[in-house]
Structure formats: structure tokens, C-alpha cells
């Protein structure tokens, strides 16, 4: 960017108000955080709507906002598949079918559920990989924020990273998960409040949806696609060569929706923790369903700005253009910041930036609370110090908050030095995560699944992901971090996304099959031990007597019906 944005007094004042309230919430909650259950699980006392918005917001880190807007600019409306094919069905599934086990088993974390259902080694594997992953992702998030604020406002990288880390650390240290959840709800409203005017002004500028479609038809033709390729989500999915994503419908439905989205929304403790903190089984089941309603609308807030940005960029004389990277390609990651800077005058600009920082902080806080819980319950209490007093574990949780954040800061700095190491780590995490959903699906719905089966399946699935990645390449890339590092390549995919989806499909399938085979060869646990942990041995939570709009099933049906209609409208 040639010039950085100038902030006025009013913008700083809005930012300062937000910081003051965030810390205020932490201090106000300090007194009611007395036990480890208060600190790690909010004393299981969070009402459904609060847990629901936090469930959504913990995922609304800046990587999500920035990334989805970037994809909107790159791929157009097809990016909505991440929401309307991926996230929503998975959220409905976890609320209706899986929450009874998570909440009903009283597990305090996802790894702890794995220990109850399977055995110690499966828990250990999940706990250690998950804890490492949370530290690195919050570090990467800090790094991204430091870079972005530097490019946009000319702020110092060190100050951006250290100040935001300090604020997140303080409010979690004081109020634990409750503090994180309360702030996430506040951040949710801020993000919505900051983004709505941008979408409104952007749409006015391009002449509404019709004007946008006309402009994007030009963009699509220039890129060598049919005119509607950026404004129709499904029409061009028949063939991977005819849509900008380079994916065909089967890879999309299986890879993105079934494996990746279900894997993330149903097994990632970062989001599941918010539902576990709900005040009753019914509230826990409603948590992801309540989150699904605003999630449905998020494409309008994040993907649409991306589409507007690319339409304005390809049209000469529009007065707006995405910046270039040093290698001459468009820097899609700057979509949201550039749009904010383009349309917002001083005042609203402060609100927009506050929303952006809020999203960075909510993503970071989600990782930190998941880390301190898994560290304390699943690593420290399990392997380092058993049987200590509750006050000791509460103290450990607070310490874990401090060193978790300190480690993330170190990671953020490492990223500035060795960019490739981070790419590699993220790749390894993707390998570990891809098969997880198969383990949970079998564990929850097939009582014959054994601990040995689950553990071997997970390892085999992780290896399958690594092999598949190592033997294939996306078009136009050389062997290395993008794949092909094991030789070959045996297959060239039309895009990196297609390769990712298929890596996930392979990992899931191998994990699923190996788990079944090994389970059949090993001794199952007696039914009595599996009560409350497996579908066929658990009483269905009854929602009779609840008003229809409070029943998880009816909420789920409504959400899915709206999703279907949206898919048809933007077909």
C-alpha cells in the first residue's frame, strides 16, 4: 500500500472504549471464579444464547474473516459452500446427535471424552497434538494481526503483538472461560456492527446485486470462465475446470462438507468447549443450533465484500483496487482492511478497526482457553500431577494462560523468521485433524469400536494424509511444501483446494476402515462401561414439554430448510 490510513482522535477513542470494557468484564468476573470448574467450564452455567454466540465467535478469528473475504474475491460466491454445505449441516449434526454424549458424559474436554470412550493413549495423542496446535494457531493469528496493522496503519509490529497478547492474557487470567465467552459475545456484536455499513456502502456503490453480477461477469470472462462463474455457487461445479475454485461437486461434498467441516465443528475442542459450558443439556444441544442462524448470514458480511472488491478491482476507473504482492499477484488478504479504509470516514473507521481487532482477539482467546483446559486436565492432571487440590488446578489454569500466551508470542516471532516452518506445521496439523471425525463417528455410533481400533485408525489416517499429500501436487507447483515431497507425483490436482479436499477424503477413509478392522480383531469393552458414551446405550434426551422453538430437532430442521433455500437462490 502506498499510503497508510490516518486515524483521528475519535477512532482511537472507540478503540480505547472497547479495550476498557474488555478488561472491565475480566475484572468483574474475577470474584466469581473460585473453582477450576468456574475457570475452565464457566461452572457450566452459561445460557444457551450466550454459549451459541460464543460458539460462533470463537471461530470468527481474523483468519476466518480475512480468509473468507479473500476467498470471496478469489472464487466468488462458491466460497459460500464453506458455510452452506460445510459448517451449517455439521453444526446441526453436533447439536442434535453428538452433544448428548459430550455434555451427558460430563467430560471436561474432548480428549477427556476420548479417554472415557476409548483409552488413555487415544486421549494422550489427541491432547498433545491439540494443545500444540492451539499455541501455534494463536501465534500465527498474532503474527497476521501484527503484519496487517503494520501495513494498514503503520503500527509497530512488536507493539501490536504484545499489547493484544497482554489484553487477552489479562481477561482470561482473571475470569477464565466465562470472561472469554462474554468477550466473544461482545466481539460478535462488534463484528456485525462494524461490517454491516461496509457491505451496505459497497453494494450501493456497485449498483446492488444486479450491478455486482454484471461487473463480475466481466471479471469471470477475463479469467476465462463462463460469465456466471463468480455469482453461481453450484452451476459450474460439474467440472473442476469450469469454476475458479478448481473443485468438482464430489470432492466438495465429501472433502469439504463431510470430512473437513464435520471434523472441525464436531471434534474441535475450541468450539465444543463453549457448548460444554452451557447450563443444561438442552442448552448445550441448542448452542450450535443457535450459532447456525447467524452463521447462515455471514456470507453476506464476509464473502460479499470480497466479491465487491474484486469487481471494483477489475473495473478500470472505479477508484478502488486491491494491492499487489511483491510477486505481482493480487493480495487478497487485504480485502477487508482495504474496503474499510475505502468506504469508512473517520469515526466509523475506528469502529471497523475495533471490529477487526476484536475478531483477532476472539480467535486468540478461543485458542488460549482451549489450551489451558486441555493442558491442565488432560496433560498436567493426567500425566504430571494427579490428585492435587482443586485450587492447585485452578492456579495451574491461570499459569497455563500465561505460558500459553507467552509461547504463542514466541511462535509469532518465529513465524517472522521462518515462514516455511509455519506452513509445514499447519500441514502436519491438517494431517492429524483430517481423520478425527471418523474416530468420533465410529466411537459414538458403533459400540463395538475399541480403544486399540481408534488409536491405530487415527495413526493410519494421519499417515494416509501425509502420503497422499506427499505423492500429489496442485497444478503449477513444484515438489516441496505444496506436495510431491515423496516422489511421483501420482496425480496433479487442478487446484490446491482440490488437493486438500482429497487429502482429507483419503485420511478419513483409511482411518474409518482401519478402525473397523482393528476393532473387530480386539476385545470390546463391556456395555456397562459405555453407557452415556455410545448412541445405542444412551437414553435419548427428551425434549417433550419444551416449546417447539426450543427443541433441537425443530431448530435443526428450520436451519437446514433456510440453508437449502439459500443454496437454491444462489445456485
Amino acid at each position, binding site marked *: 500500500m502506498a499510503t497508510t490510513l490516518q486515524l483521528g482522535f475519535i477512532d482511537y477513542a472507540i478503540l480505547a472504549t*472497547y479495550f476498557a470494557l474488555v478488561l472491565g468484564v475480566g475484572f468483574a468476573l474475577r470474584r*466469581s471464579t473460585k473453582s477450576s470448574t468456574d475457570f475452565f467450564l464457566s461452572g*457450566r*452455567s452459561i445460557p444457551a444464547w450466550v454459549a451459541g454466540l460464543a460458539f460462533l465467535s470463537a471461530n470468527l478469528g481474523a483468519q476466518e474473516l480475512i480468509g473468507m473475504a479473500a476467498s470471496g474475491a478469489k472464487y466468488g460466491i462458491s466460497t459460500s459452500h464453506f458455510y452452506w454445505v460445510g459448517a451449517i449441516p455439521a453444526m446441526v449434526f453436533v447439536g442434535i446427535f453428538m452433544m448428548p454424549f459430550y455434555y451427558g458424559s460430563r467430560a471436561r474436554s474432548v480428549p477427556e471424552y476420548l479417554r472415557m470412550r476409548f483409552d488413555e493413549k487415544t486421549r494422550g495423542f489427541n491432547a498433545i497434538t491439540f494443545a500444540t496446535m492451539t499455541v501455534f494457531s494463536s501465534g500465527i493469528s498474532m503474527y497476521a494481526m501484527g503484519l496487517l496493522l503494520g501495513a494498514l496503519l503503520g503500527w509497530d509490529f512488536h507493539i501490536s503483538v504484545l499489547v493484544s497478547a497482554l489484553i487477552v492474557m489479562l481477561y482470561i487470567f482473571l475470569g477464565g472461560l466465562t470472561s472469554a465467552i462474554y468477550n466473544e459475545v461482545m466481539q460478535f*456484536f462488534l463484528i456485525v456492527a462494524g461490517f454491516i455499513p461496509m457491505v451496505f*456502502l459497497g453494494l450501493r456503490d456497485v449498483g446492488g446485486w444486479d450491478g455486482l453480477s454484471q461487473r463480475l461477469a466481466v471479471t469471470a470472462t477475463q479469467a476465462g470462465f463462463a460469465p456466471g462463474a463468480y455469482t453461481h455457487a453450484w452451476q459450474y461445479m460439474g467440472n473442476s475446470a469450469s469454476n475458479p475454485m478448481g473443485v468438482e461437486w464430489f470432492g466438495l461434498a465429501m472433502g469439504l462438507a463431510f470430512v473437513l467441516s464435520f471434523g472441525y465443528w464436531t471434534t474441535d475442542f475450541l468450539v465444543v468447549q463453549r457448548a460444554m459450558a452451557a*447450563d443444561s443439556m438442552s442448552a448445550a444441544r441448542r448452542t450450535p443450533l443457535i450459532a447456525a442462524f447467524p452463521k447462515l448470514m455471514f456470507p453476506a458480511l464476509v464473502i460479499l465484500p470480497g466479491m465487491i472488491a474484486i469487481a471494483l478491482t477489475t473495473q478500470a476507473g472505479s477508484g478502488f483496487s486491491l494491492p499487489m504482492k511483491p510477486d505481482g499477484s493480487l493480495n487478497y488478504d487485504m480485502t477487508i482492511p482495504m474496503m474499510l479504509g475505502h468506504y469508512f470516514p473517520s*469515526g466509523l473507521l475506528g469502529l471497523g478497526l475495533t471490529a477487526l481487532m476484536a475478531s483477532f482477539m476472539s480467535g486468540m482467546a478461543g485458542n488460549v482457553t482451549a489450551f489451558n483446559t486441555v493442558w491442565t486436565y488432560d496433560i498436567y492432571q493426567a500425566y504430571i500431577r494427579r490428585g492435587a487440590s482443586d485450587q492447585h488446578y485452578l492456579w495451574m489454569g491461570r499459569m497455563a494462560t500465561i505460558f500459553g500466551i507467552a509461547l504463542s508470542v514466541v511462535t509469532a516471532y518465529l513465524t517472522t523468521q521462518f515462514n516455511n516452518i509455519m506452513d509445514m506445521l499447519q500441514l502436519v496439523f491438517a494431517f492429524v485433524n483430517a481423520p478425527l471425525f471418523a474416530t468420533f463417528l465410529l466411537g459414538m455410533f458403533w459400540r463395538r469400536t475399541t480403544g486399540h481400533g481408534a488409536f491405530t485408525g487415527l495413526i493410519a489416517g494421519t499417515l494416509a494424509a501425509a502420503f497422499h499429500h506427499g505423492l500429489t501436487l496442485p497444478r503449477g507447483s513444484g515438489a516441496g511444501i505444496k506436495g510431491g515431497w515423496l516422489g511421483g507425483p501420482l496425480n496433479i490436482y487442478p487446484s490446491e483446494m482440490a488437493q486438500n479436499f482429497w487429502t482429507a477424503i483419503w485420511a478419513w477413509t483409511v482411518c474409518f476402515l482401519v478402525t473397523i478392522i482393528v476393532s473387530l480383531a480386539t476385545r470390546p469393552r463391556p456395555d456397562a462401561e459405555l453407557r452415556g458414551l455410545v448412541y445405542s446405550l444412551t437414553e435419548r434426551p427428551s425434549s417433550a414439554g419444551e416449546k417447539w422453538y426450543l427443541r433441537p430437532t425443530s431448530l435443526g430442521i428450520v436451519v437446514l430448510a433456510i440453508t437449502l433455500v439459500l443454496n437454491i437462490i444462489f445456485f
Partner: protein
Amino acid sequence: MNLDIRLPIGMLFTIVGVMLSGYGVLSDSAIYQKSLGYNVNLVWGLVLLAFGIFMLLLGRRGTSSAKPAESTPEGRAIEQAEHQRGVEM
């Protein structure tokens, strides 16, 4: 928990709403060329202010703030189950 979440949300949006709409009244109209001529600070500031006041009112009425586990039948059943399993904290 003794803090109703709607209070801090209400406070945040009330304060920001006042700041934005106030700035909208006082600021030079030339800055609104960026926002296609709309005085977005004034309009959006008033919307946020209304939302903030609404949240404050809800929070003050204090209907459904967080309840301790013992106060619902489900919560009690769960505490009981935890006790039996010996995983009580």
C-alpha cells in the same frame, strides 16, 4: 455468575453510539465523500445507540442470567452423576 452479559454489551454500544452520532453532528461533511455522501457516523451511531440502550434495559430487567447448576433439574442430575463417577471437582 453475577454479571449479566447484556450490561457490558449495552454499555459498549451506548458509549460508541453516542461518540459516533456526536461526531457525525460535529464533523465536516466533506469527509462523507468516502461513504458515498451518507453521514454514516450519525446514522449508524444512532442505530448502535438504540441497540445499546435496548441491551441495557434487558440487562437491568435481568431475566435469564446464568443459573448455578443446582437450580435446574438437569443440573442436579448431572451433579449427582458426577458425584457417583467420582469426577466431581
